[in-house]
């Protein structure tokens, strides 16, 4: 992506999840959309506050699982029935009960991998560089004990001065401007 210039957004820091949630809920009611919360642990209320409800991870997982299972079962059947059919212990070449086990394992394997890497992908990770890291107080708090609300510049309502003022009403520890 072309390196953007200018302001990424405004970052308000809170001490408690409570404050954050109230602020976020208010902002959302006031029509802010391009915003995000940053917390050291998942705060579900905050997600609801900014109206983030469902995600695509489960779907990916389901698809991955089904594909994995089907692939394995098909492979086994092809090998034992078509590729080189041999009489093993007088068992039928199509010994489906035996084939279930590896197929089952692969269902789980691929479901699991899809879940994990799907999640990362949807989150746009890895993203080693991010404007937020420019904020002086962000890295010290966001992954430890501080709760942030960020109004992004891309939001149509966004205006640096107004936004700053708007955030101040929630009595954050600080409000800082984040550059790209």
């Amino acid at each position, binding site marked *: 992506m072309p390196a953007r210039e200018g302001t990424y957004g405004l970052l308000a820091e809170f001490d408690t999840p409570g404050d954050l949630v109230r602020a976020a809920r208010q902002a959302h009611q006031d029509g802010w959309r391009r915003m995000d919360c940053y917390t*050291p642990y998942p*705060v579900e209320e905050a997600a609801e506050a900014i109206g983030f409800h469902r995600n695509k991870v489960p779907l990916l997982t389901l698809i991955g699982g089904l594909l994995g299972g089907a692939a394995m079962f098909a492979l086994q059947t092809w090998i034992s029935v078509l590729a080189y059919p041999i009489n093993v212990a007088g*068992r039928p070449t199509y010994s489906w009960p035996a084939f279930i086990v590896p197929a089952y394992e692969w269902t*789980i394997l691929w479901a699991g*991998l899809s879940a994990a890497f799907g999640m990362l992908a949807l989150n746009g990770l890895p993203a080693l560089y991010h404007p937020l890291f420019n904020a002086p107080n962000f890295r010290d708090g966001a992954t*430890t004990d501080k709760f942030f609300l960020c109004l992004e510049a891309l939001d149509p309502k966004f205006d640096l001065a107004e936004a700053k003022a708007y955030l101040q009403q929630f009595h954050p520890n600080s409000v800082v401007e984040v550059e790209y």
Partner: protein
Amino acid sequence: MATREVKPNDPAIDPATGEFRVIAPGQTFRSITEKIVRIVLTPHTPMGWFGLFTVAGGGAVMLLVALTWLFLKGVGIWGITQPVAWGFAIINFVWWIGIGHAGTLISAILLLFKQGWRNSISRFAEAMTIFAVACAGLFPLVHMGRPWLGYWLFPLPFTMTVWPQFRSPLMWDVFAVSTYATISVVFWYIGMVPDLATMRDRAQSKIAQYFYGMLSVGWRGSIRHWMRYETASLLLAGLATPLVLSVHTVISFDFAVAVLPGWHTTIFPPYFVAGAIYSGFAMVLTLAIPLRKFYHLEQLVTERHIDNCGKVMLATGFIVAYGYAMEAFMAWYSANHWEAFTFWNRAFGPMGWSYWVLITCNLAIPLTTLWSRKLRTNIAFMFFISIVVNTGMWFERFVIVVTSLTRDFLPSSWGTYRATKWDYMTFVGTLAFFTFLFLLFVRLLPMMPMNEIRMLLPGAKIKPKVAEAAD
């Protein structure tokens, strides 16, 4: 059952529940973060760590020697023979895999059951799982007569155009174990990402920052990320649960599918799984108890955890006991001579001693004592129990694998089994290797999930405005 009456002013007790606290009082987000991060980011490593690390490293080298000799000479250097063609290698394999189960169980199943207390022990339990599986995975490979052909067990397009034989439980193992290893690692890593981010942000040195920065793939705690993250972990937990159950079931198929009396038993799957969890929790204790002492983590790994582990062991221990009872019962009730004789031989044959060791270590000692809360919360005793149970579970596998094989269908080809020094070196070697890896983990990675522990703190409670105003 509580043998110890609850004193109102006991700090270890949560007055609300009357149960032990999961986390000792007076912890803040920052304090626990610091506590856990410091262990890793401290400039000077404790001497004790170095000492242990050297010892474990030495053991790992011994393992290397044993395996090198094995490759040069062949599996004949072990005690295996006719008719006992499987020995220590398979015993250790099953044992290690079993150990692994507790990790996944704690992090996955207890997560599904919303057992908050699991949070502070889940991380190193998972680490334990991975290293145990690593040790386990070693054995199926090296126990082969021609290990350099191990890749023939994978369905790959060779010019021979011959393929693996999927009716064999060993093939099932290949997939079960590899899946289990992969999923465990992923689950472990994903769980660690936010904490790695914390490490990144706590780290002072540039190298550390780069190291953890890379590992944490730029995690920044966005709430959207958190939500997807939560879903993913939940799904992984949901997948890991059937997986962990299936893995030891499949392992048990190695025996249950065979025709051998003493192996050919339908009860194996459930009681292998139970046994696995049994030994797994034992191992968790074996690790947790010294750890919390050494790094002063008593506030995070409290007596509550020890106590609960004890309860889980009690429960699974009884399932295992039921398994043994059933074997005995079926031996009589089935009126099947093969079974009857095999059971008789197990208990009273030339290898009978091993059976009684197993009974003592798995049933006699733990199942009588774990009832008492006093003992369950007696750290020293629990440590002892954990060792005992692990021994017992090892002997369970010994009895199943060796004793059954020494005397099977044809009396003419009965035999005996005596392990050689190479067997012991390999086994002890893997123990050392396990410790080695675990020490590295403790030193380099956050051994407790900070983000999950944070949720347990009072500070994480979101109070309505009014209440807030009140205080």
